[in-house]
């Protein structure tokens, strides 16, 4: 199986601090992967590099069948290639309705001229309605998203990610601030999403990862410490020493 995303030999330094140190990472076309690691292990920086927010000092990042190099592209270009990102805090456009938020995210041409003359077709509105129903917001299409509860905003953001139809989804701590029931729903959703696309989840919560039941990559000081099933990595003495042993 060829990799969808391939990160090799990437290093980045902030003011002399090596956030990512010769990191290599691969993920296949329809794969679910969890990334864990202590604070400062470079999890967020890793996502920043893949999505184009941070430019690494060295190394390469390639994406897709044709191995398009992502380094040097800006964030919006990378997003158009098919990489979606979900932040830890829900970031929806609070001043706009749920429907407007979803229409913004809907896969379509992003250039200003095309957007200026874009008018919703019946199929687009149907898709928006469908997505909203999928995440339980079917009743709230015309409400301003700022009025939604924290959990609903998380769901709206997930629906927006689905509307983008990304091939790779990067999810930063999805369980933060969710009730136990919502967590369960989230794990189910992530698992089903990973059947058709690649999903990378950064998470602290071990219980959550156990339920995802997927390969786990442990980051430490900017590089991969161990990789394998959750049971495999939790038995790894190195991992116990730097991460689990601290608890």
């Amino acid at each position: 199986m060829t990799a969808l995303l391939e990160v090799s030999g990437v290093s980045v330094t902030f003011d002399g601090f090596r956030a990512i140190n010769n990191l290599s990472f691969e993920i296949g076309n329809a794969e679910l992967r969890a990334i864990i690691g202590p604070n400062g292990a470079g999890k967020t920086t890793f996502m920043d590099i893949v999505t184009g927010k941070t430019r690494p000092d060295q190394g390469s990042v390639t994406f897709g069948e044709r191995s398009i190099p992502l380094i040097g592209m800006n964030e919006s270009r990378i997003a158009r290639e098919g990489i979606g990102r979900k932040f830890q805090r829900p970031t929806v456009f609070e001043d706009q309705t749920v429907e407007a938020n979803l229409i913004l995210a809907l896969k379509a041409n992003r250039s200003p001229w095309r957007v200026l003359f874009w008018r919703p077709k019946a199929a687009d509105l149907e898709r928006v309605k469908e997505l909203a129903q999928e995440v339980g917001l079917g009743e709230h299409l015309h409400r301003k998203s700022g009025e939604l509860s924290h959990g609903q905003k998380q769901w709206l953001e997930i629906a927006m990610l689905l509307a983008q139809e990304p091939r790779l989804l990067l999810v930063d701590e999805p369980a933060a601030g969710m009730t136990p029931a919502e967590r369960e729903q989230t794990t189910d959703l992530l698992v089903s999403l990973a059947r058709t696309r690649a999903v990378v989840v950064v998470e602290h919560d071990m219980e959550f990862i156990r339920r995802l039941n997927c390969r786990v990559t442990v980051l430490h000081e900017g590089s991969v410490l161990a990789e394998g099933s959750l049971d495999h990595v939790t038995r790894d003495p190195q991992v116990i020493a730097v991460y689990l042993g601290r608890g």
Partner: protein
Amino acid sequence: MTRSFFARNPSALIFIAFLALFTLAVTLMSEGLGAGLISTSFVKTLGKTLCLCLVALAMDLIWGYAGILSLGHMAFFALGGYMIGMWLMYARTEEIVVAALSQGGLPATPEEVQQGIATQIFGVVGSSDLPAIWSFAHSLPLQLILALAVPGLLALVFGWLAFRSRVTGVYLSILTQAMTLALALYLFQNDSGLRGNNGLSGLQNLPGLGQTSQDLISIWFFWASALALALGYLTLNWVVSGKFGSVIRAIRDDEARVRFLGYPVETYKLFVFTLTALIAALAGVLYYPQAGIINPAELAPIASIYLAVWVAIGGRGRLYGAVIGAAFVSLLSSLFTSGRLPDIPLGPVSLNWVDWWLVLLGLAFVAVTLLAPKGIGGLFDRFQGVIPPDRKGAPLGPDDGSLQEQEAQQ
């Protein structure tokens, strides 16, 4: 989406109806075509106000919707004015020169006419050559194209440089202010080719219409300004009510998130910046023939700051707010600075409106920012019963939903 544009945007219909009524009323009361109840100079003031409303619309699009506080849009306005002023002055001077030279009996050669025009226009700055930038001044169509092309290209290049380096917020405001100041200082020089601090004058005299009275011309320009404002309003309403408006409001609120949705944020900003510069230039083209004179002081940063004040007082992020703010404040400003209001004696000092108007305007601006951030436009929300919750304090977190501290305690 089968409902018509006006059904979805009732405020646009109300606005257009109101503007049409206003135009009709002014026409019927004018000296040119009506009962003569209002003077020609006041018709010109009203026409100029409509042009200012049009720039305010542009300012609202870029500041109220896209969140870019540009303090340089009056530079584009004035550049449009300069470009149309060049043709007006050239063509008008040509008429005078041809008439003067033909008194000798022999028709003048083109060289003589050209020389005569150059001496007439540039004698005041001690030159008798026509600068290269006046090459197209003989032609109205060419100069009209320049009136849009020059400000448009300036905005495109300036915006490209600024947005590409991701300059945002107050730094961008300062940069735009520096741009308008630099242009003003350049134009103040006598050898800039635009008559230095004398500026261009006599612009109210339309070439070929020497016999037509200003009473009539003022009404024509008033109509043209009203039409431009109406078309500008409808265009911008169409722009902001669709997905494009949704994108630029999203950029205002969280531009990083918009990037991760795949939208090229910098291109959108450049698009809006250039579009609004073009609208400002168009307003300038209509404004300066009514004002009659343009000089580099029109490009001073204070002019663009006024523009921001109008939009803030009228209400950002809604088109009619910008129009109301511009009309209200600029008309009030011409009332207070006319010198016709009596001073109010206050013991040892007296309150002189001309001097105190700026202080009042400043206080009004501070008061609006602090107490009514939605400006005058916010009053319409009250009528419609749209009262936003008073959201203060930190979010409570997942369990208590979207309520914020102080809301939840009530």
